């Protein structure tokens, strides 16, 4: 069984999406040129989600990738809701009031977000009313809390993350009279999702990360070469600070059982996540909700199962770590991606591949034999590899697709090997997850001229 290059392309391109920030005669100068995104499923259905939107009542753009586990329900809910929570957190008091008044009097609501969605990125119609009500409660509280201070982006991001996770938890505890919705909120709460979200406003780039997805900045050095700067820390067992944090939050007696086999309580890979109430609620609460819940939930072994050594919940938080970065002209692009990408590729390679793709320039030094001993065969291998590197660029119109092609198809030389690509993509559903994870990528391209102009103003 062998996929032809066009078949491979149709698989790789099925979910690709590109957005270019429109230029309004130079007035709406955005530091973002646009973005490319794409995802390649390994799970069926895919558990990753992505979101992108422009804030309409404040400045800035939001982009995020969400990696679900134990189902896709939580990732789906977070991808629909999180940006509203962030946008609302960023809104000034007057705007919040205006919105509340509009809702109160049944007037048309000011639009808050303009979504940039692939046709496959769906929103749940059934839950929209429920979600809206929770959101409204949040902004009403913000109005009541009116601190009078200008909103700090970092704080807003943290608040939004925490609030949404809290709402997910509450909705599951309260339940819903509609049995479909009732089951939905429970599935959302019992599944989990990591989130890596970028907020770009002018030269201010904030990354809020919860879990093990990653944000990486592509920087072009003066000599034209590419380097990678991490803008997030993975929240997993490999991160010493995370391990330390978790241990700090629990009594010494649990120290040994907290992290086992690089997993939280020996079960969960990410150390921070949305949902996953099994790691947040008390045992009593879990039992009560499951028992009173619908039969499907009751019959599910996973939900009934209580993690071992579960003494002092919560063990898990959705609070993000926020990194602020002032964009510089040499910062050319940002890559947000779920761990499916980072497992297969080093960030330095990611920076180079995307950088060369975006600039169309391949910093391949011309080869000279000079005094070296090179055989025809060696030279041939080297040249075909260089050629493959260039030719794969021309196949893709989307930087994210191009990255996925490399992530899945790279051979030992770091070049795309069609045979390997074909094999990896034609794996049967039940085997796919063993060889690769869901991959979701957003590549945001910055406008260096605009960023340069901002810098000069300051």
């Amino acid at each position, binding site marked *: 069984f062998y996929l032809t290059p066009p078949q491979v392309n149709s698989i790789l391109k099925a979910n690709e999406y590109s957005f270019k920030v429109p230029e309004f005669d130079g007035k709406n100068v955005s530091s973002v040129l646009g973005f490319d995104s794409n995802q390649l499923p390994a799970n069926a259905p895919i558990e990753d989600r992505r979101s992108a939107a422009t804030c309409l009542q404040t400045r800035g753009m939001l982009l995020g990738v969400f990696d679900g586990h134990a189902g896709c329900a939580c990732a789906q809910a977070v991808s629909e809701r999180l940006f509203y929570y962030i946008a609302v957190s960023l809104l000034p008091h007057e705007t919040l009031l205006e919105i509340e008044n509009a809702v109160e009097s049944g007037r048309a609501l000011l639009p808050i977000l303009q979504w940039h969605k692939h046709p496959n990125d769906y929103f749940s119609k059934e839950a929209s009313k429920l979600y809206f009500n929770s959101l409204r409660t949040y902004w009403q509280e913000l109005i009541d809390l009116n601190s009078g201070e200008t909103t700090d982006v970092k704080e807003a991001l943290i608040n939004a993350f925490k609030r949404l996770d809290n709402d997910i938890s509450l909705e599951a505890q309260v339940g819903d009279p509609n049995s479909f919705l009732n089951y939905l909120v429970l599935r959302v709460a019992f599944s989990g999702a990591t989130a890596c979200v970028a907020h770009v406003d002018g030269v201010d780039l904030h990354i809020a990360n919860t879990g093990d997805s990653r944000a990486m900045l592509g920087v072009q050095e003066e000599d034209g070469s590419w380097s990678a700067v991490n803008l997030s820390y993975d929240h997993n067992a490999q991160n010493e600070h995370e391990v330390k944090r978790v241990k700090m939050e629990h009594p010494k007696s649990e120290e040994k059982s907290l992290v086992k086999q690089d997993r939280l309580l020996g079960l969960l890979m990410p150390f921070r996540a949305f949902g996953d109430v099994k790691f947040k609620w008390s045992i009593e609460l879990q039992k009560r909700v499951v028992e009173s819940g619908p039969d499907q939930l009751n019959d599910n072994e996973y939900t009934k199962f209580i993690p071992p050594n579960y003494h002092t919940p919560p063990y898990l938080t959705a609070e993000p770590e926020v990194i602020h970065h002032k964009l510089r002209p040499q910062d050319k692009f940002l890559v947000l991606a779920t761990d499916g990408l980072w497992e297969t590729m080093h960030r330095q390679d990611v920076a180079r591949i995307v950088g060369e793709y975006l600039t169309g320039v391949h910093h391949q030094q011309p080869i000279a*034999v000079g005094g070296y001993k090179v055989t025809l065969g060696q030279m041939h291998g080297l040249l075909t590899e260089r050629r493959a590197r260039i030719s794969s660029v021309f196949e893709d119109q989307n930087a994210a697709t191009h990255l996925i092609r490399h992530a899945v198809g790279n051979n030992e030389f770091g070049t795309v090997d069609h045979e390997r690509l074909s094999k990896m993509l034609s794996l049967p559903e039940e085997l796919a997850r063993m060889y690769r994870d869901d991959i979701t990528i957003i590549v945001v391209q910055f406008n260096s001229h605009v960023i340069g102009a901002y810098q000069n103003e300051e």
Partner: protein
Amino acid sequence: AAAMFLRLLSDVRWRAANPKWRRMTCSRRSTSSTAEPHPVSLPAQAQVVICGGGIMGTSVAYHLSKMGWKDIVLLEQGRLAAGTTRFCAGIVSTARHVSIELKMADYSNKLYQQLEQETGVKTGYVKTGSISLAQTQDRLISLKRIASSLNVMGIPCEIITPKQVAQLHPLINIHDLVGAMYVPEDALVSSANVSLALATAASRNGVQIHERTSVSHVLVQKGRVTGVETDRGQIQCQYFVNCAGQWAYELGHSGEEPVNIPLHACEHFYLLTHPLKEPLASNLPTIVDPDGRIYIRNWQGGILSGGFEKNPKPLFTEGRNQLEIHNLQEDWDHFEPLLSALLRRMPDLEALQIMQLVNCPESFTPDMRCIMGESPTVRGYFVLAGMNSAGISYGGGAGKYLAEWMVNGYPSENVWPLDLKRFGTLQSSRTFLRHRVMEVMPLMCDLKVPRWDFQTGRQLRTSPLYDRLDAQGARWMEKHGFERVKYFVPPGKDLLDLDQSKTFYKPDWFDIVGSEVKCCKEAVCVIDMSSFTKFEISSTGDQALESLQYLFSNDLDVPVGHVVHTGMLNEKGGYENDCSIARLSKRSFFMISPTDQQVHCWAWLKNLLPNDSNVTMEDVTWKYTALNLIGPRAVDVLSELSYAPMTPEHFPSLFCKEMSVGYANGIRVMSITHTGEPGFMLYIPIEYALHVYNEVMNMGQKYGIRNAGYYALRSLRIEKFFAFWGQDLDAFTTPMECGREFQVKLEKGMEFVGQEALLEQKQNGVYKRFTMFILEDHDTDRDLWPWWGEPIFRNGRYVGKTTSSAYSYTLERHVCLGFVHHFDEKTGEQLVVTTDFINQGEYEIDIAGQRFQAKAKLYPFSSLFTHRRRKDEVELSSYQGE
């Protein structure tokens, strides 16, 4: 490494062989940068100055001095054989498509073989043979066609199987081959040393050679070369020869009177390796793998392999930006496809160690043929350049022909395909050249199928009707920069299919052209023939008539309004041009010649017309749009449009009259066609072109008028045995040899060019005869189609080659035209060809190695002529009846 390589390729012992010469130059060679005074100063004058010390310059010097011209100075800006010549791969290959190129290569091979013995300079000549591989059946057909040509020239050559290839060369992977052509006498040389050997011999014959002397420009007075200006002073001379290789274009443009030499350099790469573990034998055949775009020869126990990539890199478009070509960069990424092809062909070479990738610029020309001959604008200015990377193969022969040209006034062979005058200023745009050579270089390896057209440099010269015709489905070809219609694709036909009509077999336009031919025979067709060259010659007195009577063989002293078909002959009676001349008034003439005559004919007439201002000549090609109305109903269309009777009684054949057509007045209408069908030529001032065309098409509707193209025209003229200049006729063909004595008026009361030669032929007979062949057992649907250049066999013996061919829709047979010679069976000497000799033979035409029976005819089928004959044609048949 580069310097090392130079030493490897260039055997320095040549200097010892020539002490006289060493005195002049050797002190320069060891130290390159120090500016020592030149030991020998330049002469103040010489008969010939040759610029360029590569293979071309030295070959011209060698041959000129052999032919007895001694007062020759050769100038080289750097060192002898240090340019492309030094870097080139040194393969002498006779496998060429064009027969004149084949002859040059064959001569070169024989010359180089004995050069070492003649001069004492080691040339590195090794007879290795060459094997051209075919990966496809089409390629094999192409090779078989060449093999047929080589065989009849007496050059050993055979088509062999892949297995035989493996026996001849141990390294070749033969799995993807369908066959090959083996030419056992092809050779390898050290090209620089061949050049040095030629220089040595020339020097011994008295040629002065000066290195490190560059020509800045050529001095011209009254259209003649008078001298050259160099960085070391002036030399007065009568002849200048531009052999400056890739710099020839610029040198041509450096003087006040520019000489257009359309060529352009491209980078060319080849690979050198260290020797194999078991070094390759020095007599191992050279491999040419055109489908892989590569050649591979043995080189010092290792290999040398290069090729002609699909994406060439042109260079020096904006002119010369560096003197030395040695420091061009290697580009391995660019070479990758060729390296892949090499390793596919010889997988065992994987472990072979690379020595160097050489970047050696080569110059290419717009039509893939080299450039030779005298400038049409500056007398005494000769050119030999643009070798399309076959400089070593052509060097000897090309130098010989050019030397003959200078000494005798014309070479011993027809070199029109290589003549500088086939080009005009229009091929000299840098942009045109850059684009065209990027197409030409890959073509070196591409399959040459009949009737392919260049894709670049198009739509330069067009008729005012171009858009109208294009919108009606016209498919175009190009001649001398002019777009001409091949045929019209009827609406609804699949265009993609038709554009891929590249085949050695029946083409897919077959039925389309068939219906155009049918319409020409039964109704009326319009063909735009605006590309033809048109001159007006007039004088205040009778000088025009007198001059033309001298220049043309037919009698031009005809009543005003008559048209005369006549040859413009050279001293040997050969056709320099074949044209129609209308006498517009007592003192003015309108002359129509083939499209590619524009430069040649102009130069010829300029040289021979009296220099006084009484005779004026004007090129009016651009002023007139020419429409040919062909067919029995043409007369009806035209008379309805002009309200004038056009029947033969009122408007006899070969008549010319200015009249109105539609609203437009002053249209020159001539009752001639170029196909033998009834019809008219309309010469329309261009601003009326669209109007007249529209009128003709509207009026013609009821007579079933339609557009037709040149393919229909060709079929019609060939089935009627009409010869065309440039295809069938050349400077070595006389009217007597092609049944056209009726167009020669030996007794017209005055002398004309070529008269003596023709008289002599009339008395003693001719040595070749233009003959028409009807293919008998040829299956149009299944067999390979003839093209031109196919060998003709009479009673099993080779007697000549075809010059053109076409399918006759009327005869439903293929018709080939060609020349029959009579070679003595024992001596090979040429004997007189009589009518009996032609008639009493069994003929076969060899198409790619397969022979088809053919019936020979010396006169056309009279049944094909539907219209009444005029006096001229009566003469034609009576002559042919003799």
